[in-house]
């Protein structure tokens, strides 16, 4: 497998002088195409920061970030936006769907920015909704959907563009256990069947067990990075 992402000695410092806070202290991390990585760690360990940097939502203070051998840290704002548009998909803890907007329209949104024609947008969005098990829910607005359904819509929105990398920031953080497992099953199947590389931040070990690889952050750096042996046994049990 070729390296999709490589972080080299990434640091991120918030604030300046006396009140400055170093969230990342020289992180090095490589992620291969097709991997499913869970990022864990206590609050303030830098796991969300590294996620934002990987998602091109934030820029590192120093270090190198290579996405398919492209130096992301050298890209400008619009170039990073285009990278997000064409290669990345996001799932947030708070779902972040547009208010008063139907599921179908939410899912179509990334395609709109890609300039896809209307009919293709509708077909692709319907397909994505089917994939997350929401066939027939397209005309419902976010307010009419349960939390689990909203997160499914958010996942459909993230995968409708067939992204290379799916970034999920605590995707089960607002959901009960049963919904959480459903979402994790969905992410796993996207990883295995569609070959989408998944990177997920979570603080629930139970959810991290779905991943092929678990990276622990402590105090702004990687504490442990292990291939997940439990994965098969866990899934057999489930």
């Amino acid at each position, binding site marked *: 497998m070729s390296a999709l992402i490589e972080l080299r000695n990434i640091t991120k410092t918030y604030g300046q002088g006396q009140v400055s806070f170093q969230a990342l202290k020289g992180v090095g991390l490589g992620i291969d195409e097709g991997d499913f990585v869970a990022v864990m760690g206590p609050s303030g360990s830098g796991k969300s920061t590294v996620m934002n940097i990987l998602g091109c*939502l934030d820029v590192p203070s120093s270090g190198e970030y290579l996405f398919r051998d492209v130096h992301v840290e050298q890209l400008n704002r619009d170039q990073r936006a285009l*990278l997000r*548009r064409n290669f990345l998909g*996001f799932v947030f803890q708070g779902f972040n769907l547009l208010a008063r*907007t139907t599921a179908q329209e939410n899912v179509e949104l990334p395609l709109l*920015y890609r300039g896809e024609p209307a009919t293709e947008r509708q077909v692709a969005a319907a397909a994505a909704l089917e994939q997350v098990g929401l066939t027939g829910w397209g005309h419902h607005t976010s307010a009419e959907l349960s939390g689990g359904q909203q997160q499914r819509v958010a996942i459909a*929105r993230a995968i409708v563009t067939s992204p290379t990398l799916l970034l999920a920031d605590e995707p089960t953080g607002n959901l009960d256990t049963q919904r959480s497992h459903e979402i994790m099953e969905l992410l796993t199947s996207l990883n295995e069947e569609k070959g989408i590389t998944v990177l997920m931040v979570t603080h629930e070990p139970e959810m991290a067990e779905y991943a092929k690889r678990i990276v622990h952050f402590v105090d702004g750096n990687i504490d442990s990075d292990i291939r997940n042996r439990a994965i098969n046994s866990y899934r057999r049990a489930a």
Partner: protein
Amino acid sequence: MLWSSFLLALREIRRNLLRSFLTILGIVIGVSAVITMVTLGNGATQAVKNQVASLGSNLLQIRPGQRMFGGGGGGAPDFTLADVDAIRSQIPGLAAVAPQENKNSTVVAGSNNWSTSVVGSTNDFFTAGNWTVAAGRTFTDAEQQAGQTVCLIGETVRSQLYGSAIPLGERLRVGNFSCEIIGTLGSKGQASMGRDQDDMIVLPLKAVQRRLSGNQDIGSIQVSVQDANNIDQVKSDLTTLLRERRHIAEGSDDNFNVQDTRQIADALSGTTQVMTTLLGAVASVSLLVGGIGIMNIMLVSVTERTREIGIRLAIGALESEVLMQFLIEAVVLAALGGLIGIALATGASVLLSKVMQVPYTFNASINLLSFVFSAGIGILFGYMPAKRAARLDPIEALRHE
């Protein structure tokens, strides 16, 4: 990109109907209030001007005595026909010089009688006073020379005595003589001071002098000036000529006065213009309030919209695309509000000007001004918060509560 931004904008407007409606409402109220007020104000000014113009065009009224308004001053002698001839021959640039001798008298036709003003004058009277002949004819030279008892009657007199009939050729009793009606005059309605201009009959000057006044005096002279720019010149010429003819010593006051309808017009339309300005000022306040309404709606929706912008940025929208969408949204709303406002104002102005009986004139500049002002506010306050939000990092915008 422009097209997709346009689609996004329209979709957002449709999706947030209440917000869109409130924004539009502010603009509609602001625009329509200002346009309606100013249009009606202008209409009122125009109405006053029209009334004054109906007194006669570029008219100078020469009366004995010193007072501006009201009849002859005590002691000051009336004019003579020689004065009229002198004015006509010695002062250039006049359209008409009409000697006038007025007496009040009761006129009788059959069983109806009516107290009215009897005017003795010449055909110049009709020219100077902008009178039209509704039916029949004016005086012939022979009738004027001989002072024959023929008359033209005003609309009020006609309707009071004859109802709906046109009484050409009928004989009308005036005091102790009777005259033949040879014409009726077109209506001019109320003069600006509330006097009914149509309440009179006109006979040749000599007929009135001989049969009602019993002397050769002329109560007043109307002079119509060809070119409005010459009025001041004509006025001073008249004053000089009449002082000379009336033997007024150097340094003494005039014992006559020359009144200018333009002065009256200026005074009256000046008043209504002040009113228009006042109305406009009041309406500007509603424009301002409308503007503040727009501002509030736009600013209040900013929290929600900041998150929205964060979402859009996160899924790969460019800053410029987001801004374009918000700009188009604001422009569409503002333009829509402005157009509705103008339509509403036009409807209201037409209706109200009918009710208030003032002429309706479309004032392009005030339409444009109020439209630009409220549309400008809508665009500015729709766009500025969006610009600030679009500059944020996507994560910061998403975190916005």
